[in-house]
């Protein structure tokens, strides 16, 4: 499955890129699977995603829980907790 990943704030900085397109293996079903898969892609991913419980994810620009399936996702946003306002 081909998907566009977009990164923000310190996730973006630690990965040193704002976005990328990835071809995900079939075994990646949920958000948690995706985060686990990303961590195998290199040290920068491991560093950026090491505190998995604080990492927030949005599927097609809507907040998603870590146990949600990513089927049908065109764009997945990965970012730290929000601090606007």
């Amino acid at each position: 499955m081909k998907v566009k990943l977009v990164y923000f704030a310190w996730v973006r900085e630690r990965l040193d890129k704002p976005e990328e397109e990835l071809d995900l293996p079939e075994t990646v079903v949920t958000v948690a699977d995706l985060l686990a898969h990303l961590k195998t892609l290199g040290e920068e991913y491991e560093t950026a995603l090491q505190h998995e419980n604080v990492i927030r994810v949005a599927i097609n620009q809507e907040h998603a829980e870590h146990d949600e399936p990513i089927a049908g996702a065109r764009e997945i946003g990965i970012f730290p907790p929000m601090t606007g306002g």
Partner: protein
Amino acid sequence: MSLTPTIRVQSEDFDLQKEVDKLTAGRTDIGAVVTFSGLCRDEGGALSALELEHYPGMAEAEMRRIAELAIERFSLQGLTAIHRYGKIAPGENIVLVIAASPHRQAAFDGANFVMDFLKTSAPFWKKEHAASGEARGWVPAKDADDSARDRWSKITESPARGG
């Protein structure tokens, strides 16, 4: 729900009075207008700027979702939410929420509700720049902001009466 909130995400500043005027122009049914504006602080001279990053598209969508929840829940007559992005100097505006209703309590609650949810679920992130000009790092999320949001799910009775 017929009322459409005004939602904007922009780098330029906003004028509080102009936005209130736009919301109330030609209206004779509004009895209360509550405005909240959030400004950049210098933290006792330690900061030269805040840099606001956002998720374009999702930021607007999430603000709209929150605004629509507030309109429904507090029967608001008007709602404006504007959030800036980019580098913002101490003393400058960051965010504006305007809520209008027939009576004061719904307007107060509506503005409060929008801010509590905006802080915890609208995709914006703040980075601090030190007085020296150097980047100081990202502002950590606060548990207190989550608690402020969560209290709305404990309030079961409609607080929007009287005024």
